[in-house]
């Protein structure tokens, strides 16, 4: 399509590019630059340029936090997938007049503030919270379980917060699944398991990957979940970066951590990009 009057096109392209360059690309370039800067008591960022920040990362404490964050985020992703896949599958293929209500009930947590949902988990898990009270009342335990402030409570909080982000892409993906392919496989003699493994799983792989990315990335960085639900030892990558910027005031080190983290994510995204091909890139 070639229009005679192109002013609208140039106006909107100019606006969006200017915006993205100033508020997305430039800031990220600045983080990269900052990761090579030094800092002293009076300046947050100063010369000379140095690689020291990256060398500092090669230290048992930071490596442990990196490893632990990856471990927790992967476990959270797997749990969300195992809980969410059969759930999304059942809802997507359901033929019931309640279907749209059930879908709406999944969208609501997606829109609700994640902070509020984290807070509601504290109410459940605290020593005098709902779960402990029920267990005490039924006589299953005789003193409150220390559910809160542990790695388990961080994991429960993460899964609780991020499960909708796994379910929604899966739901959209499974809804588009062509029933005839499943019928054909069954007609040709495939049993349930083979049909799932050879037909359904490959076709829903884009949904699985999208959902996993939407769960994995925030799981590593939502600093307020370990902060509110975790104990003093539950420090994840997000908390580490937040600490370096706002408490330790060591911006160069915080930037270096973010750059390394972003590079790891970039590699993971590239793998995802390649496995998806060009067409299936819609996420939401």
């Amino acid at each position: 399509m070639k229009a005679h009057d192109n002013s609208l096109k140039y106006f909107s392209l100019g606006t969006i590019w200017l915006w993205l360059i100033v508020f997305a690309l430039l800031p990220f370039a600045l983080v990269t630059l900052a990761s090579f800067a030094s800092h002293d008591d009076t300046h947050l960022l100063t010369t000379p340029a140095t690689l020291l920040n990256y060398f500092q990362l090669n230290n048992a404490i930071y490596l442990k936090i990196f490893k632990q964050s990856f471990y927790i985020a992967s476990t959270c992703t797997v749990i969300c997938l195992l809980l969410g896949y059969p759930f999304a599958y059942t809802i997507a293929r359901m033929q019931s007049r309640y279907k749209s209500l059930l879908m709406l009930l999944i969208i609501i947590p997606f829109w609700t503030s994640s902070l509020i949902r984290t807070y509601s988990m504290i109410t459940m898990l605290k020593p005098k919270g709902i779960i402990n009270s029920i267990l005490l009342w039924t006589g299953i335990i005789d003193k409150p379980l220390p559910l809160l402030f542990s790695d388990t409570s961080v994991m429960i909080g993460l899964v609780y917060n991020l499960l909708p982000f796994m379910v929604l892409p899966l739901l959209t993906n499974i809804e588009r699944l062509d029933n005839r392919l499943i019928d054909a496989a069954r007609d040709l003699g495939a049993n349930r398991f083979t049909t799932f493994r050879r037909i359904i799983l490959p076709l829903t792989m884009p949904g699985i990957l999208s959902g996993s990315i939407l769960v994995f990335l925030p799981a590593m960085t939502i600093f307020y979940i370990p902060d509110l639900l975790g104990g003093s030892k539950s420090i994840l990558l997000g908390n580490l970066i937040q600490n370096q910027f706002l408490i330790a005031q060591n911006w160069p080190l915080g930037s270096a951590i973010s750059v390394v983290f972003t590079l790891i994510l970039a590699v993971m995204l590239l793998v995802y990009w390649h496995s998806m091909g060009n067409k299936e890139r819609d996420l939401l």
Partner: protein
Amino acid sequence: MNKLPVTSYLTGIYLFFYIPIIFLIIYSFNNAQYSLIWHGFSMRWYHELFADGDLWVAVLHSLLLGISAATVAMCVGGLTAITMYRYDFFGRRLLSGLIFILILSPDIVMGISLLILFSLLRVPLGFWSLLLAHITFCIPFVVVTVYSRIVSFDEYIFEAAKDLGAKDSVILSRVILPLLWPALLSGWLLSFTLSIDDVMISYFVAGPDFEILPLKIYSMVRLGVKPEINALCTVTFGLTLILVAISQLVLRKKP
């Protein structure tokens, strides 16, 4: 297939989603400070909440921020989506890739990078830094929402308008906008919700002079569970429900 395990599994997941929120709502009406035991229905915590002046200031700030950010993001994002659909231009794939990456990029990285930008440009941390940050993280979501709607249109509508001699600006105001307003509105609502709920990015670019609701809730929650917070969360949850309902109603309408 046996229906019982399937039904109980679905129920289990829904209970997992909703039980914590339902208890939070119930206890916001409980007439007791610490106890889990029901001491009777009371609006006491709501009265205390509404009497808290600081909180009202934070609410007003958040509304002002959310409305401004959503409006700017809707205009810029909507125009971008329309342009990406209607024209072929140099860097189109680069632009869509960048928008895709912005949706995925971790909030914390966006937060610290904007903090560095604002401190180098000497933008004081407060309303303007928050506004610029919020617009930036809302734009990609508007683009995706509007774009996914616009591709479902019949291209010939635009061709017909052009054949009949309409200029681009006329096509925009007489053809595209009347068809696209539900998507624009739902992009606006999504942006507003994102802005009202954001903790991760605001945490880095907020200043002491401009307190906003999510950060206020965060600092209250860090001090422990209190019935006023239950009431505050219930009110916020109710508002979210209204916004979801509007957006669902609007999007369900077929063009």
